[in-house]
C-alpha cells in the first residue's frame, strides 16, 4: 500500500518549486533553476543545500569552456518523497477530505 506523506522539507515554496522543476527532468543547471525560480544565487544555494542534507537532491559539477557549471538532480529518495508529497496535497485539497481538515 502506498503511504502518502506531507513533507515539511519539500513544502517550503522555493524547495517545492525546485523539486517540481527537477521532477520531470534528469538534471538541470544551477543557472536555469535560478532563472526559473527568480531568486538569487545565495537563496537557491541555501535551498539546494537543505534538500541535499536530507538526501533528496544531488549536485554535480562540470567544466565547460573553462567555466564551472553546477547541475542538480533529484535522487530516487527525493523523487519518491516529492511524489508522495504531491499525492498528499491532492488528497488534502480534495473536497471529500475538507470536513477532516475543518475538524
Amino acid at each position, binding site marked *: 500500500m502506498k503511504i502518502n506523506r*506531507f513533507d515539511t522539507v519539500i513544502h517550503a*515554496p522555493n524547495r517545492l518549486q525546485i523539486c517540481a*522543476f527537477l*521532477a520531470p527532468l*534528469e538534471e*538541470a543547471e544551477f543557472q536555469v533553476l535560478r532563472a*526559473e525560480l527568480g531568486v538569487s544565487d545565495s537563496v537557491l544555494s541555501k535551498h539546494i543545500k537543505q534538500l541535499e542534507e536530507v538526501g533528496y537532491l544531488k549536485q554535480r559539477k562540470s567544466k565547460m569552456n573553462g567555466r564551472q557549471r553546477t547541475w542538480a538532480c533529484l535522487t530516487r529518495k527525493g523523487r519518491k518523497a516529492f511524489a508522495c508529497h504531491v499525492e498528499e496535497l491532492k488528497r*488534502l485539497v480534495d473536497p471529500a477530505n475538507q470536513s477532516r481538515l475543518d475538524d
Partner: protein
Amino acid sequence: MVEKEIQNESREMLQESLDSIEKMEQAALKRVVPPLWFGASIALLAGALVALSAAGLREYHVYIILLMVLVLVGKSKNLGVSVRKNHSKLTVIALCILIPLFFMLVAGAQAISGMLGNVWAPLSAGGILSAAVFVLSLFERRCTIIRVGVEQGE
C-alpha cells in the same frame, strides 16, 4: 503533529502549492521540447552514415559518430537541462524499425549501385534514412509539444 500543521494552512494555500508545482513542471517540460535543428542534424548524420557505409567508406564512420556525439552534447548544454528518458511506445517501435532499415538500405544501395552508379545509390539510401529519421524527430517533437501543452513558437 503534521496533521495539525496542515490544518493551519488553508485549503487555498495548498491549492496554490499544487498550482505552483504544475507551473514549474510545465516550465521544465517547455525547456525539453527538442529544437528543429537537432532532428535535422541527426537525420543528416544518420543519412551520411548510410551513404558512407553503402559507398564502402567505413573509415569515415568515426567522424560521423563524433559529430553525432557533439550534436547530442550541444543540445543538452544549450538547454541547460537533460531529459528523463520517457519515449512513447510508438517511438520505440519506430527505432526498432530504423535499425534493420539502416542495414537494408546499405545492402540495397550496394545491390543497385550497378544501376544507379557508385554515387547516386549510396546518396539515395542516405536520403531515405535521413527523411525517415527527420519524420521521426518531428513526430517526437510534436508529441512533446502536446504533452507540454504549448503551441509551436510560444
